[in-house]
């Protein structure tokens, strides 16, 4: 296969998608989405299960052919030169797919061969990457003996063996303990500082808020909103949230004062610019049992836009 060098996208975008669509028979998994990822940013895809995030990742990584629309990665169409794109990608899949027949070091070396990396370069990189993900002392341990967090870190190291220009992470910290998650975050931050572009999906909204420069929230195959985490919170919820325990008196009181609120479980939520003011009014006039004020979060945006219905 030819390795054509093409000029980068004139707008400096690493990924460019328009009207991107994926259908399985009559089911539409991704329904005509438009987004672009700029060089050097961490871009997030959020959404409930079945929103189309993973399908979008699979189209970007040239694993799943698109059903419609346009897509370019590094200015290359995945249909014309998938190997050319994949040579520059680092992919972290949702499911752990390390090779159980090899050690940690062996996993990196055997993977490096698929990228045509010369043996000596691969050996140097593998050693450096094991250091980077803090697995140097597990070098000769078979992967089956690693903990969940260690496996995810080894997958991160494996994804970096080809010095990728773009990292694609599908739920990078799924099932990890807080320590392991923080370590992964730290590594992703330092990779971004080195100029890497990172695209990730996640269910953890704190993770998205912490890491992503920009993100989209998807549902039912469509992009609902796009923006920086802080922007999205301001635009769709506000600065702060007051939560108050649901009682008939409180509801009557809020209705009387025409303060808009929403039912979230056994609490009422009031999005506001000044939580102190609302809390004061509530305490003075409504005899609430429990009142809580907090800053608005991405989770509020997410639940507001995608609803509270459980997804399968």
């Amino acid at each position, binding site marked *: *296969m030819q390795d054509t060098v093409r000029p980068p996208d004139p707008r400096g975008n690493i990924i460019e998608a328009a009207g991107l669509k994926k259908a*399985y028979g009559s089911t539409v998994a991704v329904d005509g989405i438009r987004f672009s990822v700029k060089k050097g940013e961490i871009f997030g895809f959020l959404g409930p299960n079945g929103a189309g995030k993973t399908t979008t990742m699979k189209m970007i*990584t040239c*694993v*799943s*052919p698109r059903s419609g629309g346009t897509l370019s990665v590094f200015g290359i169409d995945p249909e014309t030169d*998938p*190997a*050319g794109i*994949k*040579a520059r*990608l680092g*992919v972290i*899949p949702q*499911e*752990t*797919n*390390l*090779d*159980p*027949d*090899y050690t940690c070091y062996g996993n990196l070396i*055997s*993977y490096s*061969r*698929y*990228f*045509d990396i010369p043996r000596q370069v691969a050996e140097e990189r593998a050693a450096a990457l094991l250091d980077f993900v803090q697995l140097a002392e597990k070098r000769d341990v078979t992967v089956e003996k690693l903990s969940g967090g260690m496996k995810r870190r080894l997958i991160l190291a494996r994804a970096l063996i*080809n010095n990728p220009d773009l990292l694609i992470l599908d739920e990078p910290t799924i099932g990890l303990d807080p320590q392991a998650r923080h370590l992964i975050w730290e590594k992703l931050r330092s990779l971004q500082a080195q100029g890497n572009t990172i695209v990730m999906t996640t269910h953890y909204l704190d993770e998205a808020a912490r890491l992503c420069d920009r993100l989209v929230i998807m549902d039912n195959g469509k992009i609902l909103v796009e923006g920086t985490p802080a922007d999205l919170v301001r635009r769709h919820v506000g600065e702060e949230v007051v939560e108050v325990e649901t009682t008939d008196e409180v509801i009557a009181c809020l209705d009387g004062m025409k303060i808009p609120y929403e039912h979230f479980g056994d609490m009422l939520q009031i999005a506001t610019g000044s939580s102190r003011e609302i809390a004061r009014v509530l305490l003075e006039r409504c005899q609430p049992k429990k009142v809580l004020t907090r800053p608005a979060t991405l989770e509020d945006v997410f639940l507001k836009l995608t609803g509270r219905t459980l997804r399968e």
Partner: protein
Amino acid sequence: MTGRVSIPRITRRAWKVWYRNLEVFFKTWKVNFFPPFIEALLYLLAIGLGLGTYVREIDGVPYVNFIAPAILGIAVMNSAFFECTYGSYVRMYYQKSFDAMIATPLSIEDVIAGELLWGATRAVLYVVLMLPVLAAFGVISLPLSLLAIPVAFLGGLMFAGIAMCFTAITPSIDTLNYPSFLFITPMVLFSGTFFPLTVMPALLQDFAYVVLPLTHIVAILRMLTLPALSWVAAASLAWIAIVTVVFCVLAINLMKRRLII
């Protein structure tokens, strides 16, 4: 998704998948090198010497010499078939190795082609390890029997292709038992292995020649090991070549349909 069968675009990267399997095989060489010796020995002792004391000769050939090529042929079939059914299925489904590989410049065509080449290579390794045992017992002719090695590769590729088709359509690892005992086991017995096909009804003979791949492998191998060369070998080789191409192309297409969605 196209419903048609297309000629797969395979690159030289397929050899990287082959090499991965080879490397893992040699890492556990002690486990892997032992069975061919034992298997050859068991067959020779039980069927050759045991049964051979009653049968003595078939068509003027000592019975143990008659079954020697069958031992090789069955080894070719089993090693390639089981490698590309259970072995490939485990790598595909449980280890998710194919997913990991196609995230690199490798395409799914490369991955499956590498697996098929590896299946053929297993058959070659098996035969290479068995030949010295058979030679030590003096039941095969040398050096002509060395040609069993290239035959093992071609035959191995054929069985790898057939196996991979089953792997591509099997719903689970358990259902791979069906081709094992409905296809492989009957072939072990009815492909001119332990008795000549000529003793069977004409219809069954035709069936064996038209449908059972092992018949052709054993026929060619027997011509080499006795030796008793004939132009019939060319027909068998042609049969094997056609079936190999058809099933390898089909296997890659079926696997693509299973994995690329």
